[in-house]
């Protein structure tokens, strides 16, 4: 965290806690240079983390998870509080009318007291833990972007596969679609902006990369990430508890089913 979190109303039914607020005078001059506008490709957000480097991403996501856990336990008995959604460098606290009535002013005060009462922010993810191995069929029809990723990153397809499957990734947060985990950080050589044109349909099980992240699409959906391969491991089952296979903080490694 670079400073005090900024707390603001997000409409009248949610509260956003920004762990990395832009300075009040934020203009393009004070912003960090973007390392990934390479190749003239258009940077698109809506999914990928755009600016934080790998280490910074690990720090801000860990801080967001720790703050979210604190808010969940502190508001469990408060009327009107709903889901608490940590993301890359923020926490969104939903209000839920069905769980009792509160007003956004009161809720913001509750959240502010929790944030102010926090000791120093979490310094990072707890080390250790078991690693979930995900078998992947890289390339071909399963990974239609393997070739273009290799070209964009100046590597061979085998090197891309090796790099992607050599790292152990942290589950940083869940979002976008049911059970979709943002894993990272990616090896620097694989960090690319999202595809210029998103696909209308990405098949479930697709293993993809964008920005600092890699992910497995749990359900079929539109998507702008680069598809490297596909897994048969189901990542989401609403009848199971918990329904998502991935849990923030968990560790994941991809294992090539067709060794390079």
């Amino acid at each position, binding site marked *: 965290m670079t400073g005090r979190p900024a707390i603001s109303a997000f409409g009248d039914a949610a509260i956003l806690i*920004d762990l990395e607020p832009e300075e009040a005078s934020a203009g393009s001059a004070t912003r960090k240079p973007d390392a990934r506008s390479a190749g003239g490709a258009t940077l698109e957000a809506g999914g990928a983390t755009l600016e934080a480097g790998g280490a910074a991403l690990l720090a801000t996501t860990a801080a967001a998870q720790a703050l979210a856990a604190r808010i969940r336990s502190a508001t469990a008995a408060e009327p009107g509080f709903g889901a608490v959604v940590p993301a890359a460098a923020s926490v969104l606290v939903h209000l839920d009318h069905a769980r009792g009535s509160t007003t956004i002013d009161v809720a913001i005060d509750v959240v502010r007291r929790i944030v102010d009462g926090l000791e120093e922010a979490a310094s990072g993810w707890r080390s250790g833990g078991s690693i979930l191995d995900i078998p992947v069929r890289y390339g071909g029809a399963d990974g239609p972007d393997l070739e273009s990723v290799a070209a964009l990153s100046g590597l061979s397809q085998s090197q891309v596969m090796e790099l992607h499957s050599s790292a152990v990734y942290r589950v940083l947060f869940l979002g976008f679609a049911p059970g979709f985990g943002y894993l990272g950080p990616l090896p620097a050589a694989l960090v690319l902006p999202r595809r210029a044109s998103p696909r209308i349909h990405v098949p479930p099980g697709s293993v993809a990369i964008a920005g600092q992240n890699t992910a497995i699409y749990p359900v079929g959906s539109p998507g702008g990430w680069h598809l490297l391969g596909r897994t048969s491991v189901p990542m989401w089952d609403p009848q199971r508890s918990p329904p998502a296979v991935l849990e923030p903080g968990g560790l994941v490694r991809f294992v090539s089913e067709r060794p390079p």
Partner: protein
Amino acid sequence: MSGVAAPRAGGAIEVLDAGLQTTVQDLGRRGYEHLGVPQSGAADPIALAVANLLVGNTVGAAALECTLLGARLRARRAVTVALAGADFGAVAQPGNRPLATLRVHRLNPGDTIEFTGTGSPAVGCRTYVSFGGGIDVERVLGSRSTSLVGAFGGFEGRALQPGDVLDLLVAAEPVGVDGRPGGATPTVSWPETLRLPADVDPLRVLPGTAAAGPDGAARLKAFVATAWFVTPEFDRRGLRLESKQPVRSRPGAERPSQGVAPGAIQLAPSGQPLVLMPDAGTTGGYPVIAVVASADLCLLGQLSAGSPVRFELIDLEAAQAALAARDRLLSEGAAAIGHAVGEPR
């Protein structure tokens, strides 16, 4: 999943034609946004609540949401039904009996519901069909709403298809309906004095996180002053807007992914803002210029391609007053009809 089970013998409502997109919805699935689960639920929650109250259900019972084209449905047993939201000109067969919105009707075994009209920017795009008792589908993660994105919940996690047969939960006393076979005289209707939100009203919005600072304030002012239209790109995930004067985000204004909620209005590099709907992803990175007040989410649910959209900037106090007024509207309506507003799930 409930989906694999064959429909129970009998059933109550048979789908003859599913229209363009007909789904089972209640007031949505809350509390799982941190797992990436969209809220789902009726795009026009007021219309759902009103249709439910009329047939004696709690406001959040599961009902059918039809988009632009109504479904053709056959009652397999006697049922009570009420319609609310956009008026697609429903009739019951045989006899071509008009099924006016905002009142209770009775269907006899074998009767069908058909629609003589369609949705449009003038009448709205979603109509809600609520049956006494509510639709009996399994609750998944606390809700009977269909998650089209996750392919779960509702009826087999998908939009309805011809041949689907729906069961109903046991109805409370079919209050106020004359049970004579062959078409009863409806006696329960929504009080005319209680004005429901109308699509001619402007959408009330609160400033978004991208509206901070002098630069953001100017952008918000331009956004609110602009006359927008809904593009053909609209569904339960989002509505794309266009205008003659696009409002673009500041270059480089994309932020790391953060939690978002239905009603958030994202500025896209194209200059065509995206308004998030109930099935929207739970996180996003585009700058949020404004957020639609909760009380007016119901109006969003009636917008379709070509709908003009006007915005009105309000503050939190006004948004809370609007929400309280909406709750009052439902409880006064419920009291007039003679039911209590129950727990919304």
